[in-house]
């Protein structure tokens, strides 16, 4: 179907969160070059789009799952058969047994599909990798200030006098945004880095806190102790806009820097120095990421500590502080996919079938189902159909082999994708997804700070028979006879713009397709109530957490397996494993793109040279990594050793998200070098707000790999 094409070649890169505004050079209907890219992922968009392995036609499985036998079929056949099977599942088992699973590949398209899917197929069970990513932080921020506060699009680096990177590596994770931070540092802003690894920013830091992985809340509580006891907090803000300060004050008395130092492996004086900076330099902003506010059983509490630190020092929604994203940019929330997700809901009946209901009450708010329960559901019949878009579920989720085998047991697995992946290999239908330069889109662009949304037409026509992911789900819903609320994709895009009083076409015709959004600061001064929380204030004492049985004041919980809780295990498994986010790839994507792979041909394990030498490991050797989990006794994953002298000898850091497109199907080596292959969803403890397992700060053993 031919339709309108972009007139200026501008589009938004969706390979990571940054959403860079790029320009494509088009020759003879093909994107030949991408300008303004700030990273390899943007620069290699043409390599990806025209890669010979790209899926270009709908395919149906022949033979057994994972056998690798496929039949090319028409879209009419694909949509008709999938619609019929989804209807059959709904009638026999209920619509809640259909799961719409999205990840962060083709970013934000998947999340729009999730929105569409829950409404069109009437299911509350949607899942993104975000339960091990942003969601614990989201839950904590919403409980504290009523919206997102500590995520990567909240800090206003530009006007900041002190920047804090806490478990976040901005040079890799936010390569566009980090330029704003660097500019602020150049102007004299101070820098605190909380990270066990020598990330690039650590070398520039005024205070580098090389924390023991998993002890962030201990540090946060000790800093709260210092700031409160030395009366360095913003008394006016605390008095007017916070709830529970006295209880917090009383609570943190026990958490002295002296208490925190041995727990965190930090020096007491460094904790105090950092706390005093937070208490005396204003404004300051913070960016926290998976190293601190995700993937741990204490993730949400870690984020609560950070939100409390920002609040009591008066750095919320001020220039140079952390923006109240949803509030400050109220208009943005009318269109962006983040708020869209919780904003669209299925029927009450479907909500009853929400996986995790009651167990993790806040999950429904973020519309993430309980993932360990979902994987169990693949085996016990609670999960019957899965629409997996932009998510290499097998690689991205913990307990990869269990997920892989579980998918084979489901009645229907549909995978729209760009390339064959271990997840697509076990599908019933693999559908050819259009690349984001091949679709019309409306994207909120949260750079520094978020102040516009961009509407753009596709740059080129989709290749082969590729369809926009959103079109696929709309067309299948039509075939299934569902009430389709959006006639087509254009109608859906118009719907997202309804409060702006303009159509998608009109938005595309604005200069650069940009819709400028207002940027008021300190919105809480005029809002009634000031914050969207139960008390209407910043909840240092969280009434929401209290209501769901989670400690209402920030707490520190030691890892289930750590040098403190299980020293005996550390005799045999002496290292603590962390994940490394890669410049070359976005999560599990890009391993088949030659220019990206050249940057990282093999999975790497960073290790201190002295620690490695003691084990007879030389740089570049393949090493085995094993964990103490009984279920994985005798199993291991492999990395190439990379010596990092600044690395604490008690820690190792491994690449995440590895699989090998070049290795034999159906596994493509997903279990070879991926920590998820040796993490178990079966045993807790689980994070109390969203239910994730401890999947970083893992005890492990490293030995030289002998063929």
């Amino acid at each position, binding site marked *: 179907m031919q339709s309108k094409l972009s007139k200026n070649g501008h589009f938004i890169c969706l390979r990571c969160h940054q959403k860079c505004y790029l320009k494509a050079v088009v020759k003879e209907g093909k994107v030949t070059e991408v300008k303004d890219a700030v990273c390899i992922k943007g620069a290699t968009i043409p390599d990806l789009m025209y890669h010979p392995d790209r899926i270009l036609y709908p395919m149906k499985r022949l033979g057994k799952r994972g056998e690798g036998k496929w039949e090319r079929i028409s879209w009419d056949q694909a949509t008709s058969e999938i619609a019929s099977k989804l209807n059959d599942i709904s009638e026999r088992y209920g619509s809640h047994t259909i799961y719409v699973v999205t990840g962060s590949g083709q970013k934000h398209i998947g999340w729009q599909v999730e929105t569409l899917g829950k409404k069109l197929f009437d299911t509350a069970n949607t899942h993104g990798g975000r339960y091990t990513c942003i969601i614990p932080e989201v839950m904590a921020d919403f409980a504290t200030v009523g919206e997102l506060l500590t995520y990567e699009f909240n800090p206003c680096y530009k006007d900041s006098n002190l920047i804090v990177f806490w478990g976040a590596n901005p040079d890799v994770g936010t390569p566009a945004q980090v330029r704003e931070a660097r500019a602020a540092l150049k102007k004299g802003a101070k820098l605190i880095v909380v990270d066990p690894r020598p990330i690039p920013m650590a070398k520039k830091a005024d205070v580098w806190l090389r924390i023991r992985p998993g002890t962030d809340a201990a540090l946060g509580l000790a800093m709260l102790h210092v700031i409160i006891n030395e009366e360095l907090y913003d008394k006016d803000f605390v008095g007017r806009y916070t709830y529970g300060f006295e209880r917090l004050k009383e609570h943190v008395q026990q958490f002295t820097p002296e208490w925190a130092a041995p727990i965190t492996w930090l020096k007491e004086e460094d904790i105090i120095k950092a706390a005093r900076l937070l208490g005396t330099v204003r404004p300051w902003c913070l960016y926290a990421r998976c190293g601190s506010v995700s993937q741990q059983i204490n993730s949400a509490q870690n984020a609560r500590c950070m939100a409390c630190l920002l609040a009591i020092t008066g750095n919320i929604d001020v220039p140079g502080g952390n923006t109240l994203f949803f509030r400050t940019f109220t208009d943005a929330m009318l269109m962006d996919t983040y708020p869209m997700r919780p904003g669209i809901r299925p029927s009450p*009946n479907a909500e009853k079938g929400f996986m995790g209901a009651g167990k993790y009450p806040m999950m429904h708010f973020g519309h993430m189902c309980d993932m360990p329960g979902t994987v169990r559901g693949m085996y016990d019949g609670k999960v019957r159909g899965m629409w997996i878009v932009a998510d290499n579920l097998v690689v991205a989720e913990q307990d990869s082999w269990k997920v892989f085998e579980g998918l084979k047991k489901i009645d229907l697995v549909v995978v729209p994708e760009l390339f064959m992946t271990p997840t697509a290999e076990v599908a019933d239908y693999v559908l050819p997804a259009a690349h984001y330069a091949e679709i019309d889109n409306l994207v909120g662009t949260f750079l520094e700070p978020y102040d516009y949304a961009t509407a753009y037409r596709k740059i080129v026509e989709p290749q082969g028979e590729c369809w926009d992911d959103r079109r696929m789900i709309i067309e299948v819903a039509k075939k299934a006879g569902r009430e389709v609320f959006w006639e087509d994709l254009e109608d859906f895009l118009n719907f997202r713009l309804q409060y702006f009083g303009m159509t998608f076409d009109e938005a595309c015709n604005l200069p650069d397709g940009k819709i400028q959004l207002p940027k008021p600061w300190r919105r809480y001064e005029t809002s009634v109530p000031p914050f969207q929380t139960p008390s209407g204030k910043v909840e240092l004492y969280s009434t*929401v957490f209290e209501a769901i049985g989670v400690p209402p004041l920030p707490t520190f919980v030691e890892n289930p397996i750590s040098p403190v809780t299980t020293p005996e295990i550390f005799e045999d498994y002496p290292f603590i494993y962390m994940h490394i986010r890669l410049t070359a790839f976005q999560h599990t994507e890009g391993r088949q793109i030659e220019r990206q792979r050249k940057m990282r041909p093999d999975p790497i394990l960073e290790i201190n040279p002295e620690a490695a030498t003691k084990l007879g490991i030389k740089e570049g050797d393949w090493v085995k990594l094993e964990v103490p989990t009984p279920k994985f006794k005798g199993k291991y994953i492999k990395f190439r050793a990379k010596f990092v002298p600044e690395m604490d000898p008690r820690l190792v850091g491994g690449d995440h998200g590895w699989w090998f497109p070049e290795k034999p199907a159906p596994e493509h080596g997903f279990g070879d070098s991926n920590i998820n292959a040796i993490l178990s969803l079966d045993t807790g403890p689980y994070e109390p707000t969203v239910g994730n397992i401890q999947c970083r700060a893992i005890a492990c053993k490293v030995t030289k790999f002998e063929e």
Partner: protein
Amino acid sequence: MEKNIDEKTNDILEMSTERLIYTLPSFIDQIRKNGIKKSMEESPGLLYRLLTKLEESDLPKIGADAPEILDSFMDVFWEGIAVKAESLRPYLERFGDFTVNYETFDTPLKAHARVSDGKITGGSGMVKFREQDARWFGDTKEVLALLRGEFSMVKLFTEKLFFEGFLGLVQKKASPFNALVGSLAM
């Protein structure tokens, strides 16, 4: 001589669920015959008191045995609110257009309300998804409490109450509208 609306309301407040199911339809008829506006004047707080009574009743039983009562009640409720809102036209004009649906888990209660041209209208049944700005849903008890203006953010996090719509509307319009309805019902 038939009791007046206020006396009858007082009687209803004392009734068991079984008697309520039997009596409420005829009482709603009486309100209509008497005239909605006149009934509101004769029995201040009529709507609020009926909401409270329903909340205290065995709602699933009403939903199972006499679901039509819920529709009748919602129709008369919103007609009453519309009458009471007549004096608020300037405020409602500033409030702007807003359409909200209400839906419940445990009974067939469905309702909608709309602010447009400085007026409130509403009744049983829901408007189409594309026409709504927001949808509240939860157990009937929770939804009726919303209509009395009772709202706690905690419930949104604890699966007591669900909201469909752009989140900013909770604070901007959806919750203030419920508070307004609650005060009008009094």
